[in-house]
């Protein structure tokens, strides 16, 4: 590295820099590392600094210590936000995992048209979430909801359901849309795990007289446990830090009953232009995200 100044030197020197593993490795890392430093690492530390100031948008503020963090602890909307985020990230996961497991088990069977079917059921995960969420926006509409129409048609209800406007119902509605979006991810990941189970194991167990449930419990489950755990951790991290699904459906309303960290940080930091306080809201996610990230990392390292 001491000779980096000679990079533009003679062909022989450049050649040897690009040939030696240690220098070539570092040179190859540079472009990507530079992007990540400027647009990920630097903003991260800038965010920590902002959260310790009373900055407004376009106007750097004064250092105020941990006052933003302390203020949030007594903010009832922030309490509601933290609770909503927990519900949104944790309650949806068992549903996504169970529905995904069912989906994977069905897709793993021999059937006609299995390729187009597999491609089709992945769509909720593939297409732009903001756009598919518009579909849910209409499905949840107080006037045009097809669910309300169906229930009314069969005489189950007399008035349309206000999926997103009813403060008690809104969080369940956004969770339903989230489960819909996340189920295919679990399905396809678990399917990959299922396909790694050697067929001989099932056959051997069947010869030994094991029934379907026994084979599932003792052959399938041990093979897919790891995949399910990894998918669940990734899903918790992504859902915990979600933004667009809630933004499109409710913008955090009604009465802040569906705000999660991302949407509340946006509301305070950009709409109310209190960027210091907004940065503090976002940073409250960090310790919780770290815990999940570390569990994931430790698990993956152990597997290797």
């Amino acid at each position, binding site marked *: 590295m001491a000779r980096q100044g000679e990079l533009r030197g003679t062909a022989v020197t450049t050649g040897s820099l690009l040939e030696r593993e240690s220098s070539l490795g570092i040179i190859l890392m540079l472009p990507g590392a530079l*992007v990540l430093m400027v647009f990920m690492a630097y903003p991260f530390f800038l965010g920590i600094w902002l959260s310790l100031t009373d900055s407004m948008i376009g106007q750097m503020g004064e250092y105020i210590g941990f006052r933003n963090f302390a203020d949030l602890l007594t903010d009832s909307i922030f309490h509601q936000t933290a609770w909503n985020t927990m519900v949104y990230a944790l309650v949806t996961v068992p549903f996504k995992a169970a529905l995904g497991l069912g989906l994977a088990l069905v897709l793993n069977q021999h059937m006609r048209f299995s390729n187009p079917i597999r491609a089709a059921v992945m769509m909720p995960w593939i297409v*732009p979430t903001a756009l598919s969420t518009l579909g849910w926006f209409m499905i949840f509409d107080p006037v045009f909801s*097809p669910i309300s129409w169906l229930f009314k048609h069969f005489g189950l209800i007399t008035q349309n359901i206000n999926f997103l406007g009813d403060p008690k119902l809104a969080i369940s509605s956004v969770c339903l849309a989230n489960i819909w979006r996340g189920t295919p991810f679990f399905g396809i990941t678990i399917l990959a795990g299922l396909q790694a189970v050697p067929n001989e194991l099932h056959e051997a167990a069947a010869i030994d007289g094991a029934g379907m449930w026994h084979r599932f419990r003792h052959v399938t489950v041990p093979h897919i446990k790891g*995949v399910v755990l990894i998918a669940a951790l990734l899903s918790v991290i992504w859902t915990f830090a979600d*933004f667009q699904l809630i933004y499109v459906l409710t913008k955090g309303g009604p009465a802040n009953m569906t705000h999660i960290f991302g949407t509340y940080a946006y509301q305070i930091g950009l709409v109310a232009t209190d960027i210091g306080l907004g940065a503090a809201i976002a940073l409250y996610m960090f310790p919780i995200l770290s815990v999940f990230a570390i569990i994931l990392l430790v698990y993956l390292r152990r597997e290797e």
Partner: protein
Amino acid sequence: MVGSERFTNRLMNIYLPLVFYIVFLLFPFYWMSIVSFKPTNDLFDLKFSPFWIQQFTWENYTYLFRETDFNEWLKNTLIVSVVSTVLSLSCSIFIGYALARLRFPGSNFLGVGIFLAYLVPPTLLFLPLAQVVAELAIYNTYWALILTYPTQLIPFASWLLMGYFRTIPREIEESAMADGCSRLQILVRMILPLSVPGLLSAGIFCFTLCWNEFLYALIFMSSGPMKTIPVGVVSDLIKADTLFWGSLMAAAVLGSFPIAFIYSFFVKYYVSGLTAGAVKG
């Protein structure tokens, strides 16, 4: 599970659950599509079943191209997605190769760092990043997205390509080096051609993520004609009056179509890319 072939068994184990999943997972798309082909008046006519089209029309689609900035949004999304994907893929090829093949100081540490970067969500960074974008004076230009998207793409693409490069036997490289090829020549002439499936997976993954991105595009590209499709549709087409459903659904269908199209062609690569991270680690 292949055991019994009796029809009732298959009905209970396959066809009924399959019908449930298809209805649950595809109904929103069906709904969006039929609404996009209905004239607005038909939406209000409660005599008809809302699950079918009484009168077919293209007017919601023509409205998008004539009366809104949809053309511009499409152009912006395409430019940003292509450039950002190419940029991210180039960086990721280098990183993936370095981490897969070369021993250099700090390589272990950097490998873990790249993996952790994959787990950093945009919501954690968007407020300070808005400030960075403003400081660099790239706010409301393509660069604001072209340069910030790679932070979400490079980590996963590098990880995926690293895994792919490792499956290529070292002997190929060693014999080429004995013939006097340099490392970079080997990367370009031998490793990359052998890695086309991995490159496709990574490229499709990057392109899809760019096309679908919402938060950064919402904040960094706020003026009407500079928006991307998801942001433009969500922020400009939802208006106070109640007559927007048809064109809103038409825009959602059109904006989703390219991704669904690409995906259905390359489904194998997409799935292998998606599951590579989860299954192989």
